């Protein structure tokens, strides 16, 4: 039996003489030693925003799309899909552990391309997951159990804040490779190549497929090609995180280019996909996790193990969002409406980038803001120092540092 650290215990219960088995009954609580957890760094900004009373407040921290009125946007294709689904009067029986088959098939095709050799030879497995987070978590658990030759996951510096705790809790060790260059507010290509070329064999390297979070800085295709070559040379296992397909450039194939290139080059990748942003299905928790295997037999074995990992977490995934996503992806009409809406969202963001820079110039800025336009996706690493964020009397501009 685990014994309490007596000093910690004494401080919370006052005068008490510890002896084996004689803990005070019901006067104290099981939870006296539980520390207050810190607020979530990202969601904490939204909490601060909510508390602020200034009418001019703006929340630039939230990771969700907003329309030109600052409101959440439910896609037309989503509404249409929902109406269609409602009319079908489907039952609510459990999904298989690996999720809705129509969804996982469409999800894989979206990422890999419908003509993918991988899909034709059935040498990949895609399971439905609880959005991107759930996908990464399953991936981390899988690596921890089956990728015994390499316990290190290399993240770009910086990366999405939640990557580190997810992989750490899954049992992996976290390391980093250079990525963002604060001097240029751009990609530190030389630094990345340098660091990656030194990663020991069998390490796992995490790559953001497009619209890097949080910097908005993506490698160019020629740079991706070189990265692929170095990574192959180092015999690293590639794990793509693709949370913004379609949302970055407005073109789903263009945004998946890196993923498809790596597969073409022979990397048998792991891939996390999220439909939170590109379909606006945030709260429905729609995602996929894919492993590209050597052959169909291996894919079957890997699939069976993924199910074993999923079952003790949540048994099987939620239906609603996956049904909406698969309806959109598999219906030609809804699919083309979706492509247009994704492009519209991406275009609005691009336009905001251009307008922000134009207005800064109008305000007489002498600073070079080109990076705001060069960066891609929802997020922008402004280059503002931490002191510039937070609250002030003149109004709140909530930012990440």
């Amino acid at each position, binding site marked *: 039996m685990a014994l309490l650290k007596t000093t910690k215990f004494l401080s919370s219960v006052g005068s008490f003489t510890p002896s084996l*088995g004689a803990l005070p009954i019901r006067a104290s609580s099981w939870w006296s030693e539980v520390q207050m957890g810190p607020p979530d760094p990202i969601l904490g900004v939204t909490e601060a925003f909510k508390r602020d009373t200034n009418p001019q407040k703006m929340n630039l921290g939230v990771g969700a799309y907003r329309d030109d009125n600052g409101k959440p946007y439910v896609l037309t294709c989503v509404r249409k899909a929902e109406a269609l689904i409602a009319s079908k009067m489907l039952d609510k029986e459990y999904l298989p552990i690996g999720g809705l088959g129509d969804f996982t098939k469409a999800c894989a095709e979206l990422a890999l391309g419908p003509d993918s050799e991988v899909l034709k030879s059935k040498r990949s497995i895609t399971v439905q997951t609880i959005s991107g987070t759930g996908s990464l978590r399953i991936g981390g658990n899988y690596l921890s159990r089956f990728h015994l030759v390499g316990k290190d996951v290399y993240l770009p510096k910086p990366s999405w804040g939640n990557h580190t705790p997810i992989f750490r809790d899954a049992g992996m060790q976290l390391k980093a490779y250079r990525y963002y260059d604060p001097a240029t507010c751009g990609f530190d290509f030389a630094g990345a190549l340098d660091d990656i070329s030194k990663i020991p064999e069998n390490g796992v390297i995490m790559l953001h497929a497009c619209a890097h979070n949080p910097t908005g800085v993506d490698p160019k295709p020629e740079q991706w090609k070189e990265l692929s070559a170095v990574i192959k040379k180092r015999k690293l296992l590639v794990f793509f995180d693709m949370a913004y397909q379609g949302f970055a450039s407005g073109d789903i194939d263009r945004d998946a280019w890196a993923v498809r290139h790596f597969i073409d080059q022979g990397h048998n990748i792991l891939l996390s996909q999220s439909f939170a942003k590109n379909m606006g299905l945030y709260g429905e928790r729609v995602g996929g996790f894919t492993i590209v295997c050597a052959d169909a037999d291996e894919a079957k074995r890997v699939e069976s193990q993924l199910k074993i990992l999923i079952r003790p977490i949540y048994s099987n995934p939620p239906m609603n969002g996956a049904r909406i996503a698969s309806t959109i992806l598999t219906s030609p009409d809804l699919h083309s409406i979706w492509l247009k809406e994704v492009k519209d969202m991406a275009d609005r963001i691009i336009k905001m980038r251009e307008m922000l820079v134009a207005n800064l110039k109008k305000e007489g800025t002498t600073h070079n803001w080109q990076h705001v336009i060069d960066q891609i996706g929802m997020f922008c690493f402004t280059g503002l120092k931490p002191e510039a964020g937070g609250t002030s009397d003149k109004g709140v501009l909530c930012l990440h540092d």
Partner: protein
Amino acid sequence: MSIFGEVPLAAPVAVFKLTADFREDQSPNKVNLGVGAYRTDECQPWVLPVVKKVEKIIVEDHSLNHEYLPILGLPEFRSSASKIALGADSPAISENRVGAVQCLGGTGALKIGAEFLRRWYNGIDNTKTPVYVSAPTWENHNAVFSNAGFEDIRPYKYWDGEKRGLDLAGLLDDLESAPEHSIFVLHACAHNPTGTDPTQDQWKQIADIMKRKNLFAFFDSAYQGFASGNLDQDAWAIRYFVSHGFELFCAQSFSKNFGLYNERVGNLTVVAKDQDKLNHVLSQMEKIVRITWSNPPSQGARLVAITLNSPELFAEWKDNVKTMADRVLLMRAQLKEKLKSLGTPGTWEHITEQIGMFSFTGLNPKQVEYMIKEKHIFLMASGRINMCGLTSKNIDYVAESIHETVTRIQ
């Protein structure tokens, strides 16, 4: 050469394999008494009328969007779900020491609770703290707790195969001899897979020992309303523990009583000594949720919250639940009668004494195999049947098959 070359093929989860085998079976007489989902007398899944109504409300309400829920879930769902378990007039609730985490089904609620306990229950490393699960229990309990890092998962005596009932003496004995601070997973009602619940008096005896021995009560409540047809009656054990000062967890599932299986609607209710402790606990659970699924799915929780928070819809829901429970009770009564009138060897009182969706028939593995292979009646190797798989159309065939099996195979 693949890095996954060494990955072995894992065995499929038994209950899902059973359904897969059932689907492939060509016999016109086949009956699926396996997986735990409600079926109508036409052997069809049943979307509750109240659910259809509320779904329509949701899909037509264009002021609703699909934004992220908070990490801990939809507030109006969490509070109304906890009220269902503890009673709206629960003193613990009015004392502000009840909180909850919306989770992905009952499984998800067990998961978050288990992960929290491993980190924070008795010191900061509970990998060696014993976790007791009933013998037998839902087959996923073991995996949930071991995957959360618990290394010492033990059975507590529960089912007495010979008398086909609760082994109370064995249970109480295991409670007495459990190391202090051990965690006990208790089925709130409609024990899965045996359908055998302690009586109120027996629950009192269990609670007494647990209090004295400082054992942690982790309730698994997947069938509230479904067992007796009455929500309050089915929650009696949880409420008794709460009123006797226990801090406890209760993993609630709305899969069965709302028929929302695939929307993954669950709630981990936390009862603490005071609000301060509660907040500490919830803050740590939030961190665990964030690295597991970030925030829970909104559809099912919205649906349940709307229903529970509207007096008319709430009444309609209770009525729907009673419909399901009553059909199960009818099938129990009829199966027992038919077996008795056939003169099937053995005693069959347990069919009506047991409660909820499942019945531990007492059939042994050889008999189960005969039922599946020769009679095309699919049930778990443990002899567990889902009463919902019985209908007025197949109950004669099933009764006769049990009779034939028991007389031919020992």
